[in-house]
């Protein structure tokens, strides 16, 4: 489904701020894989997701989605294949537009925008039904401005928008990191529900080791712009936080010094 072949990215090359964020990273995702990504700050997790999404061009390498080389496609064209949820709840929705208008924008992802009506009456029924599955009461507030919603509600809505038109790949960039623990758990639960229901191929970055272990069928850990661990199958199922810390020390020769990742 997704093939990343040998991609590299250096920010601010030739300056004192030069940062080699991705170093010859390769990764292949099978259809239906739900991969969690962990790693410390600056490990290259978000950079990898942004490279896939096409936020900026990579320095080298290729990115294939469903066999199609998208390396040269601009961000808005790649969006046809991708559903994305960001860390900041403000980023995923248009706050001055209504809930139904946001959903209508998402429904047309990958289509050219014409002079037909921006939202059709029969869509509203679908939106109401899907919003009801979130259990947040948003189905009664179709015309409310998204700016009035809480961070958790906005993330749940963004998740719905990202998957309204089934994406070939769902990219979740620490989408629960800005939420309080209870809301974060609820949004993760919704994530599992949607990913399982639609059998979505998913890449989910998280700061929380426990979440990374509990969710998905495969786990990768990044450090210094490399993938240093790749755990899947039975091994992933039986994984504990202690195992993970131990493995990290083995691979990196360092102690994992990130309380946030350990304690969640």
């Amino acid at each position, binding site marked *: 489904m997704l093939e990343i072949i040998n991609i590299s990215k250096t920010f601010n090359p030739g300056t004192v701020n030069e940062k080699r964020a991705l170093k010859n990273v390769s990764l292949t995702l099978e259809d239906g894989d739900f991969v969690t990504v962990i790693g410390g700050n600056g490990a290259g997790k978000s950079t990898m997701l942004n490279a896939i*999404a096409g936020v900026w061009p990579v320095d080298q390498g290729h990115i294939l989605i469903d066999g199609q080389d998208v390396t040269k496609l601009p*961000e*808005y*064209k790649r*969006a*046809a294949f*991708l559903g*994305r949820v*960001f860390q900041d709840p*403000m*980023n*995923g*929705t*248009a*706050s*001055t*537009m209504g809930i139904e*208008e946001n959903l*209508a*924008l*998402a429904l*047309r*992802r*990958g*289509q050219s*925008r*014409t*002079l*037909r*009506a*921006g*939202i059709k009456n029969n869509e509203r029924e679908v939106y109401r039904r899907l919003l009801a599955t979130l259990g947040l009461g948003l189905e009664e507030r179709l015309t409310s401005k998204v700016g009035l919603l*809480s*961070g*958790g*509600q906005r993330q749940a809505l963004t998740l719905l*928008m*990202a998957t309204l038109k089934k994406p070939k790949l769902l990219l979740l960039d620490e989408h629960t990191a800005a*939420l*309080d623990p*209870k*809301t974060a758990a609820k949004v993760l639960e919704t994530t599992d529900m949607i990913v399982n229901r639609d059998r979505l191929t998913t890449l989910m970055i998280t700061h929380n080791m426990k979440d990374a272990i509990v969710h998905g069928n495969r786990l990768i850990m990044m450090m210094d712009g490399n993938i240093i661990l790749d755990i899947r199958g039975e091994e992933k199922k039986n994984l504990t936080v202690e195992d993970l810390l131990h493995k990290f020390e083995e691979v990196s020769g360092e102690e994992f010094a990130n309380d946030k990742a350990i304690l969640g």
Partner: protein
Amino acid sequence: MNIMNLINALPGAAAQGLIWGIMAIGVYITFRILDIADLTVDGTLCTGGAVCIMMMQSGQNVWVSMAVALAAGMAAGMVTGLLHTFMGIPAILSGILTQLGLYSVNLKIMGKANQAINVDKFDLLVSLRYIKGVPFYKNTILIVSVAIIALILILYWFFGTELGCSLRATGCNDKMARAQGINTDFNRVLGLMISNGLVALSGALLGQYQGFADVNMGRGAIVIGLAAVIIGEAVFGKVFRNFGFRLLAVALGSIIYYFVLQIVIWLGIDTDLLKLLSAAVVAVFLAIPTWKGRYFSKPVNKGGA
């Protein structure tokens, strides 16, 4: 200080306010919807007037002349849009560059600093002579009112289409827009073209109304446009929630601006100071959201969901 002098001047002020109202709606599209302060308009207003008057002088029909003026404005907007998106120049600077370039273009269109058009010799759509003592269907206030309502209806329809919605999303949150597959660069150029087209149309009407186009006629237009947007929001913001009515509020804001201007003139204030006064008023109104947040906001419970 005869009150009759003021009352007699009000219909003219209303007509001017309405004509500038079209420009203000253009400013609303960039400033409020696209979130860009587009300074191109100072040049585009004159381009619209110059193109319209030169075409009419050469014997063209008034409608054709105004259509070409609109197209010229859209071209100017496209230049600013491409400077901003294709060449990566900050929006405000792109507008300033186009505006400066337009000064030369406008001089070349007119051949000199100003060009007059005689209302008796040409079949003008609007004129300051068509305010009183003409059949109602020739009355400038009526014609411009109808034009504004028609424009608002068209814009209301457009911003409800798929394309129009994607344009609003671009202005609100371009990161989200791109993630939803919206070509934000294209939309910015398109928005600037629509906006500047309207401004040039306003310039074409203004040139006919005052009977001449002048290379300086657009100086400070952006400030008048912003004033109209802000006054409209301040006065009608609580009442008008619907998008169409918001555009109407902008046009009404422009009329209020010209009424206030007329009162200031009637009070005998030195007209040389008018631009300073306009700038000060707009500055204060633009500061209000910041001041509200800084000095009048109640403590809110941060964090949580």
